[in-house]
């Protein structure tokens, strides 16, 4: 086995296939001991049985590319892009490999080498560079979509069968796009909403873009619930999209710009905490420091920023919450959003909150923490895999439940698409929506809208 020696000598000459900045680091991939314990929890491996599409396989390919044993071609690119970035592998990995970070960095290298093309390229360009980072455009889209829904145009389009030009999965998504509220929370809310009763701390609300376009009600509910539990809520108006989708797609340059902006904005706001109700954004905000490995100044700032970020369920349990007195009679099940349970290790808090509501009967579903296939814009770029995972998720929803509850807008849209597809009678809700309802049913709550 003189292999290793040869290997090392080779490596010295062989140049890495990851020559660009912010590449996957040896310290990270060498942590993998190749035990395979992550295989069975990986949704793509479960579906395909192909080790190229498993966590161990992906890390192995990243390692080989990094050492120059493989070129940065389809061998690495396909597996790295079929990853859902769901982090289920990180939850089980005994060795502590940060698979998510490695995947994101590897995607970054691909992004440098070849800007994305094809369907996923078009989707990414439109959404990730064109819309999400630009609040003005986001607003315009929001208005257009609302116009589309409200003006009767939607009905007309449906009647004329115009949607048939869209691929099936986009048609399904169109069908479940919730009615867009008149105003986003970011626009509608005043800059400061004071705590009710004794003030425990202050929190800056990160409104999120998908959440705020499609589910701004959830943001409103979050504010009410936070106020109710002694938190001053501030809404910094200059905040922009968190950049999670850009990170997932490998567009780290764009993500860094957005992160810097948000870090500055929330630094100025200076609240004790930064609260977020979208799991994907929450995970991204907590991982801002990973984006600034090569920038000591912002790395420091990002650390500071991240240490203040809390998911709303996490913060309520941390600072203490009042048990609601209003009843919500409902049998429900909880779906663990990947970026809540795997990326942020938040599992018990939302369940605790739900169980605290009088009348709620929480029935656990099997494999509640298996990805539903939404995974950011994965359901747009990889509709087949996303569709298979959605089917499995729908199969797992226990009989007799009236609602599926979760903590992430992407999952909410995906599971709504599943509900639509199966024509079942099932509400899809966010944890704070139920909690808010319970508080409001106490009857003495000041309803702000």
């Amino acid at each position, binding site marked *: *086995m003189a*292999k290793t020696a040869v290997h090392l000598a080779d490596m010295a000459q062989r140049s890495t296939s990851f020559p660009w900045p912010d590449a996957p680091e040896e310290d990270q991939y060498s942590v993998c*001991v*190749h035990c395979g314990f992550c295989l069975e929890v990986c949704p793509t491996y479960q579906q395909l049985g*192909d080790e190229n599409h498993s966590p161990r396989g992906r890390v192995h390919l990243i390692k080989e590319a990094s050492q120059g044993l*493989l070129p940065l071609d389809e*061998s690495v690119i396909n597996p790295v892009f079929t990853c859902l970035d769901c982090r289920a592998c990180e939850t089980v*990995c*005994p*060795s502590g490999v940060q698979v998510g970070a490695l995947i994101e960095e590897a995607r970054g290298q691909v992004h440098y080498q070849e800007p994305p093309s094809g369907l996923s390229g078009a989707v990414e360009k439109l959404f990730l560079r064109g819309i999400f980072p630009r609040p003005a455009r986001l607003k315009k889209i929001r208005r257009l979509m609302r116009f589309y829904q409200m003006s009767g145009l939607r009905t007309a389009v449906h009647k004329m069968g115009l949607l048939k030009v869209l691929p099936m999965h986009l048609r399904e998504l169109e069908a479940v796009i919730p009615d867009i509220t008149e105003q986003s929370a970011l626009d509608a809310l005043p800059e400061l909403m004071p705590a009710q009763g004794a003030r425990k701390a202050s929190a800056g609300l990160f409104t999120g873009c998908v959440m705020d376009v499609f589910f701004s009600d959830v943001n409103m509910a979050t504010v009410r619930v936070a106020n109710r539990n002694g938190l001053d809520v501030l809404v910094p108006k200059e905040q922009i999209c968190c950049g999670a989708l850009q990170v997932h797609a490998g567009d780290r340059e764009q993500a860094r710009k957005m992160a810097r902006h948000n870090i500055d904005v929330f630094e100025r706001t200076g609240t004790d905490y930064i609260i977020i109700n979208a799991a994907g954004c929450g995970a991204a905000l907590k991982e801002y420091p990973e984006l600034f490995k090569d920038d000591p100044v912002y790395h420091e700032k990002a650390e500071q920023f991240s240490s203040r970020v809390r998911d709303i369920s996490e913060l309520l349990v941390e600072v203490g919450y009042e048990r609601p007195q209003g009843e919500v009679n409902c049998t429900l099940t909880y779906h663990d959003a990947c970026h809540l349970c795997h990326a942020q290790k938040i599992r018990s808090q939302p369940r605790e909150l739900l169980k605290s509501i009088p009348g709620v009967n929480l029935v656990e579903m099997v494999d509640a923490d298996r990805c539903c296939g939404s995974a950011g814009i994965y359901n747009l770029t990889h509709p087949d895999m996303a569709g298979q995972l959605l089917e499995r998720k729908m199969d797992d929803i226990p009989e007799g439940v009236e609602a599926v509850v979760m903590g992430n807008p992407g999952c909410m849209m995906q599971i709504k698409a599943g509900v639509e597809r199966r024509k079942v009678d099932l509400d899809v809700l966010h944890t704070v929506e139920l909690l808010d309802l319970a508080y409001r049913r106490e009857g003495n709550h000041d309803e702000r809208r």
Partner: protein
Amino acid sequence: MNGDKVIRELVRILGPSRVLHKPHQLHTYNCDAYVAKTSLPRAVVFPESTEEVARIVKLLHENDIPFLPRGAGTGLSGGATPLNGEVIVSLVRMNRLLRVDFDNLRAVVQPGLVNLTLTRKITNKGYYYAPDPSSQSVCTIGGNLAENAGGSHCLKYGVTTNHIVAAKFVLPTGNVVDIGQPFGDPVGYDLLGLVVGSEGTLGIATEITVRILKKPQAVKTALALFDRVSDASDTVSDIIRAGIIPAAIEMMDQLAMQAVDKSNYYVGYPADIEAVLLIEVDGMAAGVEETSQRVVEICKSHNVRTVKVAENDAERALWWSSRKMAFGATGRISPDYIVQDGVIPRSRLTEVLHKISEISRESGLRIANVFHAGDGNLHPLICYDSRIPGETEKAIKVGSAVLKVCADVGGSITGEHGVGIEKLEEMRFLFTDTDLAAQLAIRSVFNPKDLCNAGKLVPKPSRCVEVRHAQRIIEQNADFFGGFQEQTELMSPSK
């Protein structure tokens, strides 16, 4: 047919989505969980039925193309690593539970079914599959069969071979045979005994009938912390001397404790103890309470620092994960490791551990120890860094030296991880060239062209006399070997 034609034929049989053959698709199959040696396969195929496996194997056999079976690739001795450009026959898509006979305690599974998945599927009826390798959440029952896998609870319940009663096997010629006996003892030669533990060198299991057990009524698990290894070791001997048959007794040393405590499976072991014992008793509720009390007493009589019985399932589960994740968690304290798998007479533990720490000191490589203490199966984890020139070689040598110690005290070089490519040389600690030649002769009965997982399990006898001897046996019995194929063709039910 040349290689390309064979690939085309494979694609024709299985369809393009179930054959990986482009060079860029093959890298993740260049080794299993033993990473010290890597080599690319020619292709990877994913059959879904016995018939497909048989067709593939027949094709490969006829065209003299080497192949090997692979399950989850968690093997620790390189059994699924393609040394000869094999076509890898991956069984992960054959992962169905085919039938369960609760009345007679039998389940029929496909080989790619994951060990723990079987238990999960029958647990709500109160049954389980007993062999529990630490890798049970991922490894396949086919892989378990091939490695005769053991696990923590095999002290009381026995290893894989005690739980497999019959199998459908695709021989390396492509013929399908049924071996074993779903009920009753083997009739004729115990071929099942032969293929269990054959490490994929005698063919491919495609359907396996296993015993399932009723879950014990009660379980008690104790965690005992010891200042000295010798006390822990005496405790183990005393428990067994007292006539208690625990379901499991596991030991970890300080370095192993440090590794798991750095992982997601944190228990919080004190930094100044030498050994922790995890002792589990199970059975009827009444007896278990009493036995666990006796276990606690015995620990106390051996200077235990603290001993605690798990208060609830969550605590018990955490202690077990901490033990079962110990190998993987070694990645927290070292970039690479080799896990060895020696067996020793239990009473020699203290002495052997002492020798291992000497080897560690001399080599400068840290060694963590995890131990199925009840049955004397020792897992020294040799920590190294493959990036440092020469260290992989050194770690391999250290592993070998450790196995020598085990063999010298009357033990064995493998308890459950198999020989694979890793321990080929160490086979010579146990067997003479004549012994090895006899084993090779058996292999050639099943595997006449040596196409199926060649170069694993049994080393070639070192002296050429013995090689010639083995060859002579085969030549002299040419009729028999030829006849074997005909006979199996007659026997083969599924054609």
